[in-house]
């Protein structure tokens, strides 16, 4: 298979549950790397802690499996010291936006050339199904037996407001978009955020009576639409998919190199 060369096959079958969306993200992310023909010795994957973060163990790139919420902090260090490497940072919604929320907004603001992937299953999968800042209201979790009253973040609005220069969203159902948006993000010379709605049938699906993995995927098909579509105008509840921003701004590592240059000349 085209993507076999990017896998550490000795760790398969992987630990994710049957039907977990995180595997679909891995599958189609590797196709992006393959289509761009990026040398795997020049790819670095940095992850934190969570089911989603286990992804870094399965890829035959340079990989760092770090601390919960701190993937972007470690990725920043890697990129500052080796700006020629391509750095990708897959995170869970809890990892990226609960414990890691502060790192996330500041990474967006700096505009360093990193690719952040948020694998958003709206729950803490690894620790047994506690609600996250992405669960939204009316959700049953182990920590909300009477359903959540907390409102959710909108990852897209948060990324845009914080200054990310490439921002996109899709779902585990829309596999071609996963590959295409990650390709765009990897090529973008600045901070990229790709949110991918990813099903957790084991905790989110089961507790919220959303059926099995296939039913959860069908829900992504029904509940989402392309940005600015007619369907969205008719039904504002639909979640938009697509590229929300793609623009260039001064990139942090380039600015830093420039600063060193200036200091050496003065």
């Amino acid at each position, binding site marked *: *298979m085209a*993507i076999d060369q990017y896998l550490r096959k000795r760790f*398969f079958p*992987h630990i994710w549950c*049957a*039907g977990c969306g995180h595997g*679909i993200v891995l599958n189609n992310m590797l*196709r992006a790397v393959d289509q761009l023909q990026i040398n795997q010795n020049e790819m670095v994957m940095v992850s934190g802690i969570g089911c989603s973060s286990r992804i870094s163990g399965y890829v035959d790139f340079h990989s760092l499996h770090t601390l919960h919420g701190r993937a972007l902090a470690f990725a920043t260090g890697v990129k500052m010291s080796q700006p020629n490497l391509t750095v990708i940072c897959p995170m869970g919604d809890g990892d990226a936006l609960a414990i890691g929320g502060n790192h996330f907004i500041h990474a967006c603001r700096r505009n360093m050339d990193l690719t952040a992937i948020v694998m958003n299953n709206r729950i803490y999968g690894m620790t047994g199904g506690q609600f996250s800042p992405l669960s939204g209201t009316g959700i049953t979790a182990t920590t909300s037996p009477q359903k959540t009253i907390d409102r959710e973040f909108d990852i897209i609005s948060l990324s845009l407001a914080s200054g990310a220069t490439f921002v996109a969203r899709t779902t585990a159902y829309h596999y071609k978009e996963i590959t295409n948006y990650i390709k765009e993000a990897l090529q973008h010379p600045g901070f990229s955020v790709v949110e991918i709605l990813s099903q957790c049938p084991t905790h989110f699906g089961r507790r919220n009576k959303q059926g099995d*993995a296939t039913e959860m995927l069908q829900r992504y098909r029904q509940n989402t639409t392309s940005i600015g579509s007619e369907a969205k105008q008719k039904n504002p509840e639909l979640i938009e998919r697509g590229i929300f921003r793609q623009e260039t701004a001064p990139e942090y590592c380039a600015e830093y190199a420039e600063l060193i240059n200036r200091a050496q000349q003065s």
Partner: protein
Amino acid sequence: MEKPKVKEHHIKRSWCKGCGICVSLCPKGVLELNEEHKAVPANASQCVGCRTCERMCPDLAIAIELEQEHETTD
């Protein structure tokens, strides 16, 4: 456009967890779960080579090999 001819469905039995995603999403009803809950190409001749199963498998267990690919790699 000519319909791509499928040479083989390579399914890694030990990687498949029997989630049924490929079975439900295949537009031609090609795949089934056997008694051990592993995906098998029960109606292989119906396959149109769209690769939905390959791309949607969370366990990276499926690879579709097309005739043309085989010829060009020869």
